[in-house]
């Protein structure tokens, strides 16, 4: 005979749930019994002493908190296959709350449920008892078939209810334990933030490494080929003196275009990742930018050792972009760049004596700059009153 699924469902795993609750009850009542220790031998009778004894025993339970938590985790793993996440701290009020309040209440519910299991099992099998017991000890009334039938039906209903209750309590216990014994919401968030920060740092580093790879590929590939082509065209210009005028013009033109292409590619590659930054660090790379800026730039770089490559790259692009902005918008006569380390901070300050009024939310490179700084958890601020001067300040974290 097939039992219909709705009837069968509560019994799926009900046995395991019952055992789980029974073990839980033992652990919980064992723990609670500690509270009763002072009364084993009469114990205190005055209210204050009673309170003191309770407080002391609660303290003992609190101290045993890590052990109890381990026991509970083991119980969940062994009987339910549920892994309660490890909390950040081995001791917390949330855990004590579980061991002293939530756990015992659930255990009490478990005990009642087990009792129901037993009673329902006896009632459901009443006919067996009726026929198995010796005639003189048989309860007089159960002999009546109608009452016995009622009892059987009630027992079956009780079994059904007990199964359902067991599963509900297991779910409740799992929720309470996960909530109280596992990491708190704050801890989970904290951990998540750490993970996110680490993965973002990974992405930023990877992007940086990728720029470097592209720079190398262009430098050692396309750029070299272009230079060699320009050299050959230059040689042709010098050595092939007796060519017709038209041919000379074509060579001239090609030579000029090749040189322009080299210059364009050079700027592009430098924008990706300047080779000198990798070889010689910020000071050397920034002096290159300062030189290429078409206005006087004072440069002070005060670094005892080199920051991480990603931080170096961000600092480089901050200065590069800030100076480009100065040239484009500030109408300045000069600019000053200062880079120094203050503890765990790499401080980059770019100042100009221009007209000010720079808007960091505008379409200028400032917004992109701020994003780039944020990618390494740096801070970006700009002071640019109308009339000037403009000061861009960037702080980048770098391990001291």
């Amino acid at each position, binding site marked *: 005979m097939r039992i219909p699924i709705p009837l069968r469902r509560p019994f799926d795993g009900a046995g395991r749930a019952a055992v789980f609750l029974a073990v839980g009850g033992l652990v919980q009542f064992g723990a609670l019994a500690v509270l009763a220790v002072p009364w084993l031998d009469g114990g205190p009778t005055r209210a204050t002493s009673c309170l003191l004894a309770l407080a002391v025993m609660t303290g003992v339970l609190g101290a045993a908190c890590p052990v109890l938590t381990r026991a509970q985790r083991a119980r969940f793993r062994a009987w339910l296959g549920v892994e309660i996440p490890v909390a950040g701290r081995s001791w917390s009020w949330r855990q004590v709350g579980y061991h002293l309040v939530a756990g015992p209440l659930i255990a009490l519910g478990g005990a009642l449920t087990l009792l129901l299991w037993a009673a329902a099992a006896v009632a459901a099998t009443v006919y067996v008892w009726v026929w198995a017991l010796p005639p003189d000890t048989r309860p007089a009334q159960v002999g009546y078939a109608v009452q016995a039938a009622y009892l059987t039906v009630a027992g079956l209903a009780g079994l059904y209810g007990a199964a359902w209750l067991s599963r509900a309590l297991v779910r409740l216990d799992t929720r309470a334990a996960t909530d109280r014994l596992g990491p708190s919401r704050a801890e989970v968030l904290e951990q998540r933030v750490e993970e996110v920060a680490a993965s973002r740092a990974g992405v930023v580093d990877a992007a940086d490494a990728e720029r470097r790879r592209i720079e190398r590929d262009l430098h050692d590939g396309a750029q*070299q080929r272009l230079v*060699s082509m*320009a*050299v050959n*065209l230059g040689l042709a210009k010098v050595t092939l003196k007796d060519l017709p005028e038209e041919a000379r013009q074509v060579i001239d033109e090609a030579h000029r275009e090749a040189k322009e292409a080299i210059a364009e590619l050079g700027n592009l590659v430098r924008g990706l990742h300047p080779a*000198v930054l*990798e070889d*010689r660090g910020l000071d050397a790379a920034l002096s*290159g930018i300062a*030189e290429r800026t078409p206005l006087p730039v004072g440069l002070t770089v005060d670094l005892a050792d080199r920051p991480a490559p990603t931080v170096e790259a961000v600092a480089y692009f901050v200065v590069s972009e800030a100076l480009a902005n100065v040239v484009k918008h500030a109408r300045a006569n000069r600019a000053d760049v200062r880079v120094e380390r203050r503890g765990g901070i790499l401080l980059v300050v770019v100042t100009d004596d221009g007209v000010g009024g720079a808007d960091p939310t505008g379409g200028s490179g400032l917004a992109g700059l701020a994003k780039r700084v944020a990618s390494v958890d740096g801070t970006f601020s700009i002071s640019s009153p109308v009339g000037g001067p403009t000061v861009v300040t960037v702080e980048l974290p770098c391990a001291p």
Partner: protein
Amino acid sequence: MRAVIAEDSVLLRIGLVKVLETAGFDVVAETGDAEALLAAMEEHRPGLAVLDVRMPPGFTDEGVRAALVIRKQWPDTAVLLLSQYVEERYAADLLSGDTRGVGYLLKERVADVEEFIDALRRVAGGGTALDPQVVSQLLLRRHSDPLDRLTPRERDVLELMASGRSNAGIAEGLVVSESAVAKHINSILAKLDLPKADADHRRVLAVLRFLGVG
């Protein structure tokens, strides 16, 4: 004069050999890395070494370091560094000490064959050839008070002077007469409190020393 070349890009190396041969040099060795270059130096003792800054195995500044070794071990060999980027620090390394027979140019200058040959001959003859870009970087770095006293035109002259040009070369570059250049130079040397000097490379030496790299 015998010359050796170290350049890891084969295409460019072929071009360089042709340019050097056009200029009348006898290329006795061409290598792709700094180590092979130093071996070739030992074997051939050439008068000129032309080398790339970025070479195997590290592709950073092997050329600069090799150039320093050459300057130290074979001081009579002229050294011309070629680089995709001209960076002042490499020049500062190279120029510390004696500036005779030293050149540092952007690779793309090779394409202007006649000018490049001119620079090659200047370096091989014990002169100096610095890329205009590096000179302006050097000037920028040390723009201290005495330099502020120079007029823009005098600054231009100083830059060309520092890149190793003769008076005639400067006059041609700025489209002025040679006597005007001489006047500017006298004025510069006076403003910078530098003693007058005869030979061209001594002027560069003086300028560079003033710039803080000599």
